[in-house]
């Protein structure tokens, strides 16, 4: 077992993990943050996307030990403490950009990072920027519209 220290959603957490423990399983199983989902075993679906030091990362492609000392943001950490949704979450809600909701946490995290990194994206840019996140329910149109709206409204 290896000691790992992560700052998760603003709180420092120390845990002991097997060296091969994936970050996503450390978050889900060890820290109980089950909002981040697992949809594949080949880094293909993006359901597990979180922010690592502000950048989106597929948490199934990283070992927890690789994230030692990193600042992690998961879906549980993006709404305000009073429950007010993050503008990206709010835009997903208003555009009906989720159905079953399984892809949603990863999609929201990827979208937050995308619009922050590339301000002023057009529809094509959003579609290509979210290529690594699969959704089986929505056909993507409402997701794309939500991301464009959140970007346009200054919703980081």
């Amino acid at each position, binding site marked *: 077992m290896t000691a790992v220290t992560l700052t998760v959603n603003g709180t420092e957490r120390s845990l002991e993990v*097997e060296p*091969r*423990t994936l970050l996503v*399983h450390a978050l*889900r*199983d060890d820290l*109980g*943050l*089950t*909002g*981040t*989902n*697992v*949809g*594949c*075993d*080949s880094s*293909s*679906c993006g*359901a597990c996307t979180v922010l690592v030091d502000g950048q989106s990362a597929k948490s199934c492609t990283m070992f927890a030990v690789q994230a030692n000392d990193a600042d992690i943001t*998961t*879906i*549980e950490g993006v*709404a305000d403490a009073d429950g007010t*949704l993050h503008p990206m*979450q709010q835009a*997903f*809600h*208003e555009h*009906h950009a*989720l*159905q*079953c*909701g*399984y*892809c*949603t*946490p990863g999609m*929201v995290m990827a979208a937050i990072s995308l619009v922050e990194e590339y301000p002023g994206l057009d*529809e094509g840019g*959003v*579609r*290509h920027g*979210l*290529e*690594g*996140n*699969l*959704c*089986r*329910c*929505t*056909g*993507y*149109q*409402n*997701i*794309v519209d939500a991301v464009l709206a959140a970007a346009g409204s200054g919703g980081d």
Partner: protein
Amino acid sequence: MTITEDAPGHVGSRRLRKEDPALLTGEAKFIDDLALPGAIWVGMVRSTEAHANIVGIDGSAALAIDGVNEVLSGEDLAPLWGEGALPCAWPVTPDMKNPAHLPVARGTAKYVGDAVAVVLADSRYAAADGAAAVVVDYEPLPAVVEIEDAVADGAPLVHADLDSNECYTWGLWGDNAPAIDAAFAEAAHVVSERYLQQRLIPAPMEPRGCAAVPSPAGGELTLYSATQIPHILKVMTAVVLGIPENKLRVVAPSVGGGFGCKLNVYAEEILCSALAMQRGAPVRWTEGRAEAAVSTIQGRGQVQHIELAADADGKVTAVRVKLLADMGAYLQLVTPGVPLLGGFLYHGCYDIPNYMFECTSVFTNRTPTDAYRGAGRPEATYAVERAMDSLAVSVGVSPEEIRARNFIGADAFPYTSAAGLIFDSGDYQTVLDKAVALADVDGRRSDQAQRRASGSSKRIGVGFSSYVEMCGLAPSRVLASLDYGAGGWEAATVRISPTCKVQVVTGSTPHGQGHETCWSMIVADQLGVDPDDVEVLHSDTAVSPTGLDTYGSRSLAVGGTAVYMATEKVIDKARAIAAHQLEASEDDLEFSGGVFRVRGTPEAEVPLAGIAFAAFTAHDLPDGMEPNLEAHVTYDPPNFTFPNGTHIAVVEVDTDTGDVDLIDYVAVDDCGVQINPLVVEGQVHGGILQGAAQALYEDAVYNSDGQLVSANLGDYLVPSAAEAPRFRLDSHVTPSPTNPMGVKGVGEAGTIAAAPAVINAVVDALRDLGVTDVDMPASPQTVWRAIADAQGGAS
């Protein structure tokens, strides 16, 4: 409490979903999110051979792994279920072959993915490591992989104890055969086509998973499963394992999509339940993605032969269909019934007097097939809509004209089809006209002509698909006539609490469709309350003991109707109390906006809230009336519903590379009255992309050894946002007369319509090059080869 003054009219509005916040914040609990301290983790050891005798199972390397506790073979597990097999609920013919499908194989493995042993471990990782470390000694047997090979002379047998690979033959033609032969003999035009429906992997973003939790003191068991069908699963698990049904509870937590593949009773559900009872400890399993590709059912898998006979004007006089359908190695819950669901619809939305359908279903050494979004109807629509385009070419008219000449007329409803169904309502021509206008078909065609004239390598194609589907499964008596093993009703309970909050219990089981929002809107309008004051409970047999769950676009037309009727029943009871309080006759009362009023005496009124409280205290109710406002309804629909529509796809095909770009997609659907257009559009978007994905990207590719070579999401091309087009939608509403709200259903429409629209567009783009057919998926390689073959043939 919120009682609005005026009838609020939530139905028909684009109300945002109440399901969203929990899903958007990560609060929602999916199956793998459940914390079950002390649970035994199951790892499944799956056959790597398509067909082989299991000579030996060596668990020693697995048992050497820290945290792996047991390795169990099918024989070791036999005491748990004896000869109990996974259930098939649809024996479509009396002589259908249904080989016993044991949860874990004994002796012989019959497909890649067949469970052959089980590892029990302390953790998720140990279970996975252990399963990978089990060494199985196989003696390979000859395998049957492709459908047509299964019926070839001398084909190896999938099941050695059967005398062929045929599962059943089912037909629908009545005494019509001479008339059909005559129609073909007299036809001016005959179209005869062969189409392939490749196998598809449903791939909801959440894989399957289950957890069985015993309560040793009470001898009870709770089975949590990522399932569409907790109610059916409960009955089936009780039957297979002999657990008294009253000791079993099944819960579907948040479920991350299903699309039919979670409409089943799977080995792992039976296994975890049996082990949990035996060990007195929670037992859980979570499916991996590559595992899902072979261990969860697949969809489609058919070879279709369709023939149309038409007169000189292109009016179709007969349709004759012969199908070969791939069951896979075993029958799952409704495997054999899937082709039948399409079997009634190979005449499409056309008025065709003579109809013959025959399906022979076969076993192969592949993963079982079963219902996948549309289940039989996408296949039927594909065949007839592709064939109609061929007929249009033969007659020399446009695709829209051949459809117009054959549509069932708007004045023909209720329409009795040649296959024996009674179509409820529709106006197919108006729907098509709307789609043609929206898609700017004329503009696209002139662009197409220009590019052809200029020799451009970027060809434009316009493809049509007009469809009708049967939804709202189903009238129980019709199901009986089809030998289905259950009814088609749905149940609902509506309760009004002392403080006038509303609780709706539904037997439908959502997994993304938005039942909570939509049921609330329906009930809120009926009762004159705010939708936020309506709570919708579902998916837990302890809370909702009666139900038949969600599949076949049945939730709204059957489950929603049950909710509507239960609410009406509650209102009737409230009216009796109101009449008692107001000392008026019930006939003199009107109810709107949540208030009962005596007609003509506006000051004589009582709000529902007052009645709810009076019903609770029961101090002054009419003589003989039971306290409380609550009603239960089980609704058995008198007929199916028949959503319909026309979709138009526009593609740009690069003739140099074979690449197909879906540049526009227009859909005009008639799903009856819409409760929430926002939700309807979401269903249509997702459905279209799933159908378009069959047309362009997805294919469960097996090699000749029966190995699935597209098992993970890198090889099996579920489209991303980058491939998806922008959809442009319109709708047309002909209310269904079958149910009081006039609703039809929309969950499968997009998938049913899309594949033929896209392939018709691809063929349209390339027709001047001599291309008449392109197999699905129309990958660049397939399209390029079709062009090359057509050009080669022409030279």
